[in-house]
């Protein structure tokens, strides 16, 4: 190769983005959430892994989640381009080509699954592979554009990291991580639909059948309340099962009441600024609620704060 050819580029294609653009393809904020929930899944498991294996496993899970986010951005670039929240993502903004994103996502998907299999066990690797395929193929390519239940079913992908975390530590899937899976799964619809109520116009322009566009805002508000009413007691199941202690019970009770109260506020405020304020209030609180629940579990298990509520 000559020095002349090394400084030439085909005019028809992009010449590649900055390093932060590739990092942005991995949805770093989602990766942090995945690391956190997988860590909690590991902490509630009865087992032990060497610290190096635990750290490498968490890293592989995070990269796998990032890879699925990258494949999602590759597939959804047309949608992202017409929504203000996502128009500046690297592909719609023209900083990275679709082909680059696809190659990057596929490479990281395979690499993360292989590393997790070699580091921990092949059950956790298979669960990670399932999560990536579920998010990138089942949710992004099919459900998202096909049904108003898209984020209900697709929420399974976001709920799986604690299950993978437990599989890393114990080599099997236990009831503790399945309860955490159920909490995230039921938490997802009220969380996303609160935002969808505000962004309904943008989703409609992009042709995405979110619940407010299909069933209407009224039905969506009622469903938000039902999910929250179901979520509040579900959030306390770890206490009943004995792996959530006093701190978790307090956080789960206060947070659950908050979720129901803010959902009812969304149901009652249907117009104007009050509607927007109520929906964004629930959206913000739902993030705080889930973070607080999982933080309480982690603190109890890893800092010795566990005080049994149920004998």
């Amino acid at each position, binding site marked *: 190769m000559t020095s002349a*050819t090394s*400084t*030439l*580029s*085909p*005019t*028809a294609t992009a*010449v*590649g*983005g*900055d*390093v932060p653009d*590739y990092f942005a393809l991995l949805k770093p904020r989602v990766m942090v959430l995945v690391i956190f929930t997988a860590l909690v899944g590991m902490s509630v498991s009865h087992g032990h892994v*060497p610290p*190096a*294996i635990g750290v*490498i496993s968490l*890293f592989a899970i995070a990269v796998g989640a990032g890879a699925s986010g990258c494949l999602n951005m590759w597939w959804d670039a047309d949608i992202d381009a017409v929504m203000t929240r996502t128009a500046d993502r690297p592909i719609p903004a023209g900083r990275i080509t679709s082909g680059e994103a696809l190659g990057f996502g596929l490479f990281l998907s395979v690499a993360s699954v292989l*590393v997790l299999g*070699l*580091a921990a066990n092949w059950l956790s690797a298979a669960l990670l592979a399932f999560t990536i395929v579920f998010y990138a193929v089942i949710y992004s390519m099919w459900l998202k554009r096909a049904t108003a239940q898209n984020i209900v079913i697709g929420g399974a992908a976001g709920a799986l990291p604690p299950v993978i975390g437990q599989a890393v530590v114990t080599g099997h899937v236990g009831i503790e991580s399945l309860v955490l899976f159920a909490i995230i799964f039921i938490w997802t619809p009220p969380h996303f639909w609160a935002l969808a109520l505000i962004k309904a116009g943008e989703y409609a322009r992009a042709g995405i059948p979110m619940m407010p566009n299909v069933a209407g805002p009224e039905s969506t508000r009622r469903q938000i309340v039902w999910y929250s009413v179901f979520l509040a007691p579900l959030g306390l199941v770890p206490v009943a099962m004995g792996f959530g202690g006093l701190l978790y019970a307090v956080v789960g009770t206060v947070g659950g009441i908050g979720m129901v109260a803010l959902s009812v506020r969304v149901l009652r405020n249907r117009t104007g600024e009050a509607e927007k304020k109520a929906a964004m209030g629930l959206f913000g609180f739902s993030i705080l609620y889930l973070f607080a629940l999982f933080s309480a579990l982690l603190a109890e298990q890893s800092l010795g704060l566990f005080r049994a509520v149920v004998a």
Partner: protein
Amino acid sequence: MPLEPKIEYRPLTPEEEVRRRKRSVAIALALGAMVLLFFVLTIAKLGPQVLNRPL
């Protein structure tokens, strides 16, 4: 015999060359990190005995 599509090339701008250099450095660092990761993984899985073997 089908004709090869003709691709026209242009020189990279100085800014694009800087971006490419940064990407190259990032790829090199990622490869180095991967080597380190597999080294740590080998030691953690097999223990230091992996180095104690007959020649």
